[in-house]
């Protein structure tokens, strides 16, 4: 069974697509790697990934969120991209709430986790909408 990614739209006027906003700020290398990774996760079950399962639960100040591991190590500079959101493993549904780039312990943008947690609670209280990832 494959997985589904959906974008979260805030209840602002006009609604904001958080992952789209992040995506548009990235260069082609990150955009392409992100698109490819989403495509592969949607096409293959987590069982196919084995030990390389790219969806992991987050800890500490990001606890409650899940991250998609996206490491670009094919050439320098190595980059570690982390799209984050809510993962419903039973439905294999990942709701994208944003993303950040990790360099050691530094995240860019720095408030990515706190923002995502805020929108997670909004979504869980019925605010905002979700739609197929595009």
């Amino acid at each position, binding site marked *: 069974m*494959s997985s*589904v990614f959906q974008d979260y739209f805030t209840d602002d006027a006009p609604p904001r697509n958080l992952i789209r906003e992040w995506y548009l700020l990235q260069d*082609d*290398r990150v*955009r*392409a*790697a992100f*698109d*490819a*990774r*989403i*495509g*592969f996760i*949607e*096409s*293959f079950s987590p069982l*196919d*990934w*084995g030990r*390389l399962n*790219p969806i992991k639960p987050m800890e500490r100040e990001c606890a409650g969120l899940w991250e998609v*591991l*996206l*490491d*670009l*190590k*094919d*050439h320098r500079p190595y980059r570690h991209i982390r799209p984050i959101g809510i993962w419903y493993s039973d439905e294999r549904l990942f709701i994208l709430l944003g993303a950040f780039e990790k360099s050691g312990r530094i995240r860019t943008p720095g408030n990515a986790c706190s923002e995502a947690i805020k929108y997670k609670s909004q979504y869980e209280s019925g605010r905002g909408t979700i739609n*197929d*990832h*595009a």
Partner: protein
Amino acid sequence: MITPNEFWEKLSTGRDYRKEIVAAMLKQGTALQIQGMMKQKGWTQAQLAQQAGLTQGVISRASNPAYGNLTFNTVIDIAAGFDVAFIGKFVPFSEFARWARNLRDEITFSVSDFETENSEEQEQAARSQASTEEIRRLLSTAVPVGHPSMGIGILSSLVAARERVATISPEPAALQLAAPRLNEASGDRPTRPISTPATGTATTEISVHKRPPRSAKVFSPRTFRRHRLAMRGKRYARTA
């Protein structure tokens, strides 16, 4: 799931994006397939490394979608370790887009190695040979080739042979084998296509006659002896 139009729109954003998406899909796909094939065979990285003549570290990197610095030589060694082929080819982006949309079908983990395929081929060849032998046997008993008195009497056996040929082996190759024999027996008369149950109309045509050719002379034994004596007399007359 991204739609084909959305994907094409992304490809249209620029050459750099197109280069990066091809790289990302190829690198992640190859790594995932290596890992999936190892799992399918129940092999560890060390076992694949031994089969491929590489180190376990190389296999670890090759099966990691984040690495993506595989050389052709490493990929070919890994393919040899699995005893499968690896094809890389240049394609237009329309084909790439179709491939990317059908990843689950395009990237399979169950890939037969050469030995498995070879034994399957041999079994198939043996089956084909057996049916060919059966057709030869049928033709030699049912159709008396070159029989001077071919007529209505053998029509039924000819038709029966044709039907059994079609039943035993609907393969065009088998029909091709049968066709000359049947045509020879029936004297190259106008033909009509033969239908087989499995394949519909076969490409080979086999002629079947409802009566013997008009040119064929039918002699009774007495007439034949008289004719032969007459011919001998003519020869004597010519030499004398």
